[in-house]
């Protein structure tokens, strides 16, 4: 056994193994650097799509958009997720990390891959968008960079699994793994599937780019690429929902309402979430109707069911914990008395609501086979995924960072006043950004499009005035969100550089096993009408009504367009 040390954090009681701790720090810091690059690129994207500004030239715009997509969706999120996987295994199970040397090699591969891909994009001949649909080709290093990054991430997943095995063998805990670790296992299983799909399609495309093979079928490419492209977003869903559970536990001492329900919902993700790559092929030729219907609905919306369950059980667990503390008046005292000044909590709450109402509902619309025809490739699509990936994943990661600054990085946060404000500024700007993008998409405005005025086109189409107004608002909201993101980076990097150093706590050569948890008291006597969390149930019903109304509004809209059969 390699010699290592264990540190017990005096502020959180969490135990960090020194190798795992260093790896979490480098992965998280690299993630933040990727976010910084992606954020700077976002300025170019929004200021070009804002019609009255229309800043960048077409070639620069497409290059910047390609880099923005890859740096944010892949590099920022996956570097951070590797840190989260190490945290959920090594830290939560109080166990040493499996093969730390290999973990460093995995990090090096990911870093080299990320830099190689960025260099390829900024050289200008790889403006193929994140999706890089063949036969449009990028430079070979574009694909090679992604492949190296993916191999590194895959190794990271296996180190996570290996760490679980060590924890079990060395008996660092008893019984089952914590729910948050279970969620991380879900994310890692999905990640293995995702990365394998990416390898299956990117390796032939790389070989095509260097001339070893002569063609990759465009439709086969789209089908397999999306098993990578969409599934990678499902890793995020599993990861950020695990973080929501973790924050509910950290900020409120909330325990899951029922382990069975929450773990069952994660199991539904493992079984059905991957089918959703079909969402991207609904407007494609060559794929049968039965295939589309079964896959796009996650068989029978079983993954949507799982998300709706998490959407209830997380606030529900918080409500139960708050009521137990005495915030038991009316339906919503538990929520009013939540620590709204704590960015760890406010970030997660804004993330939950935005992910559900904006990201979740719009995602089901786009993923309905027929409704997809009035949405496919319009700017509604980025409206949707900024609600899921930015409001859902990125904002959750930001909230978690505020927890990690004193706990993992051992620094006092600089400027806590600004940190208090950040989730609100960033979160609400993103809400508005997503809404106006979806509005413009409903009017048909295209995504990935340099000039909605069609300058130089002999038969230019004139978008309605409202579309121009909405795209102007996209620009304003986007800049406001970028400002929120900049504050996050300032606080995080600033705290690491100039924040007061905090004590490391006790360091020991051996781990302290997790003591068995005391069994819970009998059933809750709080709440009303036999409901332990009546306030949450009311919120859930508000969600359901919005969902149902918006769903049928879209069908009404579809029924008025040209007949298609």
């Amino acid at each position, binding site marked *: 056994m390699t010699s290592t040390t264990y540190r017990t954090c005096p502020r959180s009681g969490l135990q960090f193994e020194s190798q795992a701790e260093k790896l979490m720090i480098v992965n998280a810091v690299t993630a933040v650097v990727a976010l910084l690059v992606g954020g700077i690129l976002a300025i170019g994207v929004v200021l070009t799509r804002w019609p009255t500004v229309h800043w960048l030239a*077409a*070639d620069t715009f*497409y290059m910047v958009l390609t880099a923005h997509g890859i740096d944010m969706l892949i590099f920022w999120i996956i570097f951070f997720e590797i840190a989260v996987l190490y945290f959920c295994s090594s830290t939560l199970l109080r166990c040493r990390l499996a093969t730390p040397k290999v973990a460093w090699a995995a990090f090096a591969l990911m870093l080299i891959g990320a830099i190689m891909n960025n260099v390829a994009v900024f050289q200008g001949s790889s403006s193929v968008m994140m999706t890089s*649909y063949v036969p449009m080709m990028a430079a070979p290093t574009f694909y090679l960079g992604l492949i190296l990054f993916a191999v590194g991430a895959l190794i990271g997943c296996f180190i996570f699994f290996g760490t679980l095995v060590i924890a079990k063998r060395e008996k660092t805990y*008893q*019984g*089952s793994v*914590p729910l*948050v670790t279970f969620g991380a296992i879900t994310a890692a299983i999905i990640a293995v599937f995702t990365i394998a799909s990416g390898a299956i399609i990117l390796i032939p495309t790389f070989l095509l780019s260097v001339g070893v093979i002569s063609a990759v*079928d*465009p439709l086969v490419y789209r089908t397999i690429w999306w098993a990578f492209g969409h599934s990678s977003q499902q890793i995020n869903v599993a990861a950020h929902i695990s973080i929501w559970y973790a924050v509910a*536990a*950290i900020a409120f001492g909330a*325990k*899951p309402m*029922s*382990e*069975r*329900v929450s*773990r069952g919902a994660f199991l539904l993700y493992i079984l059905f979430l991957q089918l959703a790559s079909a969402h991207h092929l*609904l*407007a494609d*030729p*060559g794929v*049968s*109707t039965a295939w589309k*219907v079964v896959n796009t*609905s996650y068989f*029978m919306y079983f993954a*949507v*069911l799982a998300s*709706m*369950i998490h959407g209830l059980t997380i606030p529900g*667990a918080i409500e139960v914990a708050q009521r137990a503390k005495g915030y038991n008046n009316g339906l919503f005292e538990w929520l009013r008395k939540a620590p709204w000044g704590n960015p760890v909590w406010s970030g997660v709450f804004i993330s939950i609501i935005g992910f559900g109402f904006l990201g979740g509902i719009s995602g089901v619309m786009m993923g*309905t*086979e*027929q409704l997809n025809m009035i949405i496919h*490739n*319009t700017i509604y699509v980025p409206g949707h995924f900024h609600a899921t990936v930015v409001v859902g994943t990125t904002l959750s990661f930001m909230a978690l960072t505020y927890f990690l600054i004193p706990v993992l990085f051992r620094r006092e946060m600089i400027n806590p006043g600004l940190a208090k404000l950040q989730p609100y500024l960033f979160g609400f700007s993103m809400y508005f950004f997503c809404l106006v993008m979806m509005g413009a998409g409903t009017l*048909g405005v*295209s995504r*990935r*499009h340099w*000039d909605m005025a*069609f300058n*130089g*086109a002999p*038969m230019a189409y004139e978008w309605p005035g409202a579309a121009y107004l909405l795209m102007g608002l996209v620009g304003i909201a986007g800049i406001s969100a970028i400002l929120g993101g900049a504050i996050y980076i300032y606080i995080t990097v600033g705290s690491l550089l100039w924040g007061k150093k905090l004590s490391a706590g006790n360091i020991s050569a051996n781990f302290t096993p997790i003591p068995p948890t005391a069994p819970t008291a009998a059933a809750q006597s709080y709440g009303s009408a036999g*409901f332990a969390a009546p306030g*949450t149930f009311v919120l859930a019903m508000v969600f*359901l009504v919005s969902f149902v109304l918006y769903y049928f509004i879209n*069908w009404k809209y*579809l*029924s*008025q*367009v*040209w*007949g*298609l*059969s």
Partner: protein
Amino acid sequence: MSAILPPAERLWWKHPLDRVEGTWIAIALIWCLTMFAMMVGWHIYGTQNLSTETYKTTPELFTKKSQAMVDKYTVRTETADNIPVVAPPAGADVYLTARLWNFWPILELEKDKTYRLHLTSMDYNHGFSLQPVNINIQVVPGYEHVVKITPNKSGTYSVVCNEYCGINHHTMVSRIYVK
């Protein structure tokens, strides 16, 4: 017990469901099945379903068929490039080619008549985005997608390419006239 600690009860899966969870799961499941039924039902009762009729094709093969249509049904030409405007009869096979960076030819259709629209791309992926109706279909090279369309209002419609296809992507716009 907490989400970041192992569950206290070893047999956590025997822990009873709270009523709020049970009720919500039942409601959510009904809604999920309703949405599934809606999607299947629209194939039976709805009039907007995307056809899946698809053939493998090549630029040469498709050009031959679309040229034959253009030779037969051209009524005039438009724009400086003299793009033909074709007015095929109701029920006809209509060929629309997407390529860098235009659609060819321009179509003139009749209201409430059904046409078999054949879509393909000569080079990269393109998008068929019919505005202001807002119907969007992916156009993939090597595949001929046959979509039956029935315009329900007369007017001048635009076809915008909404799949990124290179530097002049934003100039790739055409028209469909409906009489």
